[in-house]
């Protein structure tokens, strides 16, 4: 199908964008940065087109649902939100140095969706329980949240790399010098975590509404639900330790990484536990 062909090309486009960001960091020429941004943007546009085609195809096949219904589609959408959020941030902050850490994540997710065994990229009909507009808003908000947490995680990693290189900027390499300052990274990490927290809250709420209509109870301690609560609590702790206890920098970076581990477990890990949400059946 045409949409999956486009999507596998987008995987390479994101990889190219990552390489250009890397060149920019090493060579220091802004030309590479501009090229990387435009490449990522082109990938994002192509991916959006592919998603729309996929959406339309599902209507043509008589199933009619947003492309958010199975594991493959969720991975694709995850990568899409990450790139979208990153490009918005780059545009707002006028700073390209985060791209070299964010684009590889988007690339890896796309690559995993295309090549991992057992991932079905066909458009499939929905079982009755999934035929709900709440499902669409649930998936949409959850992945917006995940994307923001992913960027916070990338910033956390950057923070540690910068710290490991030492504070003496004259001695460290060009790459390290082009990273944002520790203060900036800390602020951004917090903004991303806060943004993600709002979206995750919306995701949990819309999920509960959906469960209320589909299963007759807004909360049933299903493993995926429980893990999203755990993730939510971890980020709540992160916000509190920063605001009230004044944690900064290194500790925030650790929280961002721990939080992201919870996100990954919520998304992938619980598929190994029995669950209503399992994509992998």
């Amino acid at each position, binding site marked *: 199908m045409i949409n999956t062909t486009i999507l596998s090309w987008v995987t390479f486009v994101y990889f190219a964008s990552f390489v250009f960001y890397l060149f920019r960091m090493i060579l220091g020429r802004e030309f590479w940065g501009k090229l990387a941004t435009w490449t990522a943007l082109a990938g994002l546009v192509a991916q959006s087109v592919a998603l729309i085609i996929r959406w339309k195809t599902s209507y043509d096949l008589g199933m009619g649902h947003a492309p958010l219904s199975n594991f493959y589609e969720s991975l694709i959408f995850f990568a899409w939100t990450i790139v979208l959020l990153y490009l918005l941030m780059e545009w707002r902050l006028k700073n390209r140095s985060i791209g070299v850490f964010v684009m590889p994540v988007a690339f890896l997710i796309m690559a995993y969706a295309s090549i991992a065994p057992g991932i079905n990229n066909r458009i499939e*009909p929905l*079982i*009755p*329980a999934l*035929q*709900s507009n709440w499902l669409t808003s649930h998936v949409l908000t959850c992945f917006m949240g995940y994307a923001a947490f992913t960027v916070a995680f990338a910033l956390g990693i950057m923070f540690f790399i910068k710290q490991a290189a030492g504070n003496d900027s004259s001695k460290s390499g060009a790459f390290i010098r082009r990273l944002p300052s520790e203060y900036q990274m800390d*602020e951004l990490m917090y903004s991303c975590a*806060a*943004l993600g*927290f*709002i979206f995750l*809250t*919306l995701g949990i*709420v819309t999920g*509960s*509404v959906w469960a*209320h*209509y*589909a*299963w*007759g*109870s*807004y909360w049933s*301690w299903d*493993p995926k639900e*429980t*893990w999203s*609560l*755990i993730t939510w*609590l*971890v980020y*709540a*702790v992160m916000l*509190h*330790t920063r605001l*009230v*206890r004044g944690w900064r920098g290194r500790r925030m970076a650790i929280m961002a990484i721990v939080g992201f581990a919870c996100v990954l477990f919520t998304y992938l890990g*619980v598929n190994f*536990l029995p669950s209503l949400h399992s994509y992998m059946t």
Partner: protein
Amino acid sequence: MTKNKSGIWSFFSSVQLAIVLLSLIAFFALIGTLVPQREAAAEVAGLISPGLFSLLDKMQFFDLYHSVWFFLLMGLLTVNLLICSLDRLPMAWRRFRMRPSSQNDDVFKDCPEENSIRARADMVQAANAAASLLKKRYRKFIRTNEADQVFLCADKGRFSLFGVYVVHLSILVLIAGVIIGSVFGMEAYVNITEGETVNAVNPRRGSQSLPLPFSVRCDKFTVELYESGAPKTFQSDLTFLKGNQIVQQGKLLVNHPIEIEGFRFYQASYGAVPGGKATLALLRADGRRDIINVGAGYAFELPGKEGTFNILRMEENLMKMGPAIKVVVRSKKEEVSFWVFQQIDKIKQTNPDIIQQVPIFNPGLFRPYTFTLVGLEEKYFTGLQVSRDPGTPVVAAAALLLICGLMMVLFSYSRQIWIRIDQKKEGVRICIAGRSYRNKTGLERELQYLIAELKDNLEKSK
């Protein structure tokens, strides 16, 4: 405002406790996803000694989310939130109300030198310039004139100071809603065969069936399949009755529950049961063939009047060999019973000796007849989830509050700007101070902008 608060108060108003409690709740939830809970706990029983199992069971280790421990944590969190909010609310109120005057000009105390301007202008002129600047940026401002000082004050997003309290209140409302639900609510299920009526349901917890204040009839059940065989939609046509009076009628679909008298009915599952009707073909040795429609429990006369037969059982899929019914034939001389399979030819193909080995599978056991099952009529039953949860509207309100509160906290910020103008011998001194509990960088930028504008204004007007 008492300064020396008791130990308990300061314990419960501390945010450290909140952080510990939130982490503990997360940890608890994590354990609950690793250890099989409730019905699944039986898996563990085989792995550990019975003594240990019953000890853990007594400690509610296999029902963590409904255990005393979990409720205890929730209770502590509630008290923590309540005390912490009460403790801080007066301070937020003061921040909200704060207007500078000569009595409390401590906001200017550590006003750095770069945030003040000295200008050769008189006080009224400077005050007017500052006022028009604030009016342009903030629309509203407050001006206090004193003997040799003027105070100006403007702000935005004052209400976002209370966002945090809205968030914390929403958590309390949420907990209240959950408690209401767990005390007054119930969850149950019931299966209704097409055409049947029930007036009780089976609670998920406990074994006694629970009577409903009305009865429910399933008039019809329909299922539509995709080409792959997966269900596309299924629906039950339900009628709710009181006595013989119809109170409500409706179609129940997945994701579209029906609510009646506080009970909500959800379409959960479905299945097929033998409908109690079957079509039999009776072949006699001389080649005559009769078709008879039969129902379970009734007695039918054989076409040649040799005796009668009854249907004892009907199976959709007996021993994985397809539909079958058990027949007993009674005549004056004998009484024989045997199974009649629908797919007897296929069974004989795969297992030619079956009739010799299992005589009761021989449909020709009563001579001179050979029975054949032509078809078994199936009926669907609909699986309904029934729940009543008076806490749901409370929880929904909490969710709404939570989202509004978070928007207030994270997407808006409060900023207050104060300007003090002093008359000095050689001119005026203008101090600009500001406060923002979030977005400090934005505040810095704003102060710089205001100072630059004001300087510009005063220089121009000279």
